[in-house]
């Protein structure tokens, strides 16, 4: 109960912060807030899947595509209000997640990564195979406006930032609760030792599929939000780069930690923008200026992993402990670092997960 109250309090504080920021900052920054919130939603789902249940997915971009296309199609053909559409998108991607989860239940490590990567590559190509439904490479346009009660002069990007942040925060609170519940404990047990988990009565197959369903649902909602902020749903937005960015964000933020999902999203969205600002302000030629952010982003990924093996959240916790505020526990600290020794009776395993043949 106390953790629920604390999570709700933290979410409320962030919500107030977002509202203040979105009013103070300009339209472009509002768009970034929305973008960050979308990544938070998707990465939070992935960090639960990969960090808690131990299943790697390089295909969550595909679930985002499903959510985005569902949103575009429902808005276009049925014209439902957005929150109803969001629910539809979540349900559709949950079903997709269940199908993928069942198919993937026997796969581990790189085999799962390979299968989900191919899913992420293959699924967007459906839009070219059925251009009549999905609009081919041009994609589908999405019409989204501010609700009437805000008056005609309310900036659309500010409203979008609010909607996206609200969804992200609700998702975070729900996932935080879930990961502290029996479901979350089962996932951790399963991640640390599948056989031991099965022996203690965890339904391994069901837990693994459930993790996929939840992760896909989050990605689907993120896709729905992406559809309304970009106002266009096209296959070009859902390349493997997106799926890889999601996993990258989850790991450099701190795998299995929900605050890590926030750090990871901040890095993914802000590092390239910041590097572009620096590059263009130094008057470099366009080819150089447009590629420096890419290279800088690569360097940041490598450095974060070398300096903070537990991700940014691991670094934050280390800093807090150093300052002697270790009593101020962040939510879901019980993750990669803490859960491993406690979750199983088995002694610490060597690192090579696939064993030595």
């Amino acid at each position, binding site marked *: 109960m106390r953790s629920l109250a604390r999570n709700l309090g933290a979410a409320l504080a962030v919500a107030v912060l977002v509202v203040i920021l979105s009013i103070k900052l300009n339209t472009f920054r509002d768009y970034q807030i929305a973008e960050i919130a979308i990544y938070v939603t998707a990465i939070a789902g992935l960090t639960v899947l990969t960090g808690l249940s131990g299943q790697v997915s390089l295909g969550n971009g595909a679930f985002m595509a499903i959510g985005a296309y569902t949103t575009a199609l429902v808005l276009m053909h049925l014209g439902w209000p957005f929150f109803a559409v969001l629910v539809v998108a979540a349900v559709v991607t949950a079903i997709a997640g269940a199908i993928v989860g069942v198919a993937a239940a026997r796969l581990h490590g790189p085999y799962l990564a390979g299968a989900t990567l191919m899913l992420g590559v293959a699924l967007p190509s459906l839009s070219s195979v059925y251009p009549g439904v999905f609009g081919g490479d041009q994609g589908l346009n999405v019409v989204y406006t501010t609700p009437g009660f805000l008056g005609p002069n309310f900036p659309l990007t500010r409203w979008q930032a609010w909607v996206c942040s609200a969804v992200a925060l609700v998702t975070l609170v729900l996932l935080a609760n879930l990961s502290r519940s029996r479901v979350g404990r089962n996932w951790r047990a399963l991640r640390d030792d599948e056989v031991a988990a099965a022996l203690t009565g965890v339904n391994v197959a069901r837990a693994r599929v459930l993790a996929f369903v939840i992760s896909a649902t989050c990605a689907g909602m993120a896709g729905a939000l992406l559809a309304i902020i970009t106002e266009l749903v096209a296959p070009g937005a859902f390349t*493997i780069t997106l799926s890889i960015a999601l996993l990258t964000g989850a790991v450099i933020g701190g795998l299995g930690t929900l605050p890590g999902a926030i750090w990871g999203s901040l890095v993914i969205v802000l590092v390239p923008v910041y590097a572009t600002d620096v590059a263009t302000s130094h008057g470099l030629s366009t080819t150089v200026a447009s590629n420096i952010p890419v290279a800088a982003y690569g360097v940041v990924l*490598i450095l974060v992993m070398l300096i903070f093996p537990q991700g940014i959240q691991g670094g934050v916790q280390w800093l807090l402990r150093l300052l002697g505020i270790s009593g101020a526990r962040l939510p879901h600290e019980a993750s990669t670092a803490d859960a491993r020794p406690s979750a199983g009776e088995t002694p610490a395993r060597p690192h090579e997960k696939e064993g030595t043949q």
Partner: protein
Amino acid sequence: MVEFLQFTLSGISFGMIYAAIALSLVLIWRGTRLVNFAQGAMAMFTTFIALEVIYHTGSYWAGFVVALAAGIVLGAVTELTVIRPTLGKPELNSVIVTIGLLVLLEGLAGIFYGGQFRSFPTAFSDTGLKAGSTPLGVSRFDVFVAASVLATTLLLAAGFRYTSAGLRMRAAAFNATVARLSGIRVARVITVGWALAAMLGALAGVLVSPSTFLYPNSMDNIFVFGFTAAVIGGLDSPVGAVIGGVLLGVVLNIAGGYLGADVTALIALGILVVVLMIRPAGIFSSARMRRV
């Protein structure tokens, strides 16, 4: 029927390139238990170096040799500088480092060479060969592609089987702890594995670039299909990687030829799903117990 034969033959040529990438991934997987996502980007980078050399010397073969040498250096340097510190850390860390390297290399290639597509020369004529009057759908260069990957693969296989260095590498891949106890410098073996893998990747880059053009992202798709081939074959099996690569190349080329290029990724997904449903660790996985 002629069409089918043409698709099959040119599929083998493409499949050999997937096989080279798959094999390089297998080499690294066996040594370090990690999938190197930068494999394609490293190959792209060494191919740019080759293009530079060819431009300045006018000799294709100088570029070819320099590309392979650059691959060896790049692979070894990568392992020593950024990969080694991540081993023994949470296992996805090293994967993210390779993703970081992928992004970095593509960014650097963009800075140095820009984003435009560059054509890359071939070693031999790329006009189609004919049997009598029927075109075979492959050129002399395609034959060279298949032959050079096959030759490299066989050389590597022979090296692994018949040399003491190869024995050390197999021992290190089989059981690192025992290998270390019997006096093998496992760390050095891993570095050599990375160097050889990057050399194979460089070979694939030089061979595929005439047909895909060369640009910072040009190896992305090749990497995805190479990875798929390695997964189909089983990441522990070099033979599986080659067979998986050729199988994927042929099936995708036939499917793409008859049904259009849009479906190739879907077909690849289909093959992957079917194979992994039946054998969750690839066709050539040895039946082994998961940790108990």
